[in-house]
Structure formats: C-alpha cells, structure tokens
C-alpha cells in the first residue's frame, strides 16, 4: 500500500461520513420542516446526497457500473421534485 493509496482511502472515508451526515441533517429538516417547500427541498437534497454516495461507492470499488445508477437517480430526483412542486402549485401534476 503506497502513501497515495492511503490518502485516497482516508479521503473516501471522509466523503462517506460527510455524505451520511448530510443525509441525516436533511432528514431532520424533512421531519421538522414547517412548510411544504422545506420538505420538498429536503427530499431533493436527500436524493442528491444519495447520488453522491453512489458515486463515492463507485470510486471506492473502482467499478464503472455505478455510472448508470447515478444517472438514473439524478433523473428520477429531478422529475420527482418538479412533480411535487407542480402538485402544490396547481393541485395537479399533468393538467
């Protein structure tokens, strides 16, 4: 194990810990959130943090497969955020 690989492992561990912390903090906001805008925002942040977790998992295992997974998560997250906001704005998703 060289020095560079050691530092990379530490950086990956730190990235995992911060992403999980961010996930927990936004979950607290999701539960507390006084308005529905806050809840949508917290869900959006959680989706983006999950995307980051998948990316870091791909780095740590050295595999390329997780690229498709993260792209799918990004698309689903965007569509679901817009659908939730649209539902509150218009009372309907597709008019």
């Amino acid at each position: 194990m060289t020095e560079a690989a050691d530092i990379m492992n530490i950086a990956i561990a730190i990235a995992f810990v911060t992403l999980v912390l961010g996930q927990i903090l936004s979950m607290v906001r999701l539960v507390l959130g006084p308005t529905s805008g806050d809840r949508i925002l917290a869900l959006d942040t959680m989706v983006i943090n999950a995307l980051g977790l998948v990316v870091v998992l791909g780095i740590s295992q050295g595999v390329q497969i997780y690229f498709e997974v993260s792209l799918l998560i990004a698309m689903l997250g965007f569509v679901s955020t817009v659908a939730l906001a649209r539902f509150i704005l218009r009372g309907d998703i597709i008019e």
Partner: protein
Amino acid sequence: MTDQDFGTYAAALFLLIGSGFVFVGAVGLLKFNDPMTRVHAPTKVGTVGIGMLLLGSMVYSNSLGSTSIHELLIMAFLFVTAPISAHFIAKVNIHRRACETPPSPPRDETWSTLNSPEADQKNENLKVGQS
C-alpha cells in the same frame, strides 16, 4: 512522484472539497431560519459538491488507466436541472406565502403564481354552468 500518484492526490483533494461543500449545504439547510434562505444552501450541494465528487471520480479512473468521461453527462444534467428545481421550490414558497411576498404589482391583483390562467377559469365556469 509518478503520474499515477499525482492523479490519486488530485482525486483525493477533489473528494475532500466536494464533501466539504456537501456538509456546508446540509448544515445551511438545517440552520437557516427562513424558507427562502434555506433554498440557497442545498443548491450548492447539487452543483459544486456533486460536481467535485464526479471530477474526483474522473481523475481517479484516469490515473488508474481506464479513462472515463461518462461523469460529464451527470454533471451537465445536474447543472441544467438544479436551477429549475430551485426555481420551482421558490415558487412553492411564494404560493404558500411561506416567505415575505413581494408587494403587489401595480395593475394585476396577484402574482401569476397565485392566479389561475383565464382558460382554466373559463373551463371552471363551464363546468359550474353545466352542473
């Protein structure tokens, strides 16, 4: 220092910067005390934080010898969609009057977010007339 070592160090640096932005965004989402202010912090997670993580992934796979530029696709997608979703969430905040709404416009009665378009109003009238 070989090229591979340099790439690994750069990837570790990108990972650290990205996770710093992710953490700052999450703390901002929790600590800010106004719904409109809270929209500001997590958009940085989406663009800079995840962008840096993806850049780190690209640099790392490049230093290992198997170049991949797929991550640019995710980055482009996130950069395009993050402002749109933030805009929608801001519109939700205005619609629910969760924030201090701007003063009423001089001519119209309300902002267009709070209004239903004329075509819909006609349809509603028709429905009411028919029933």
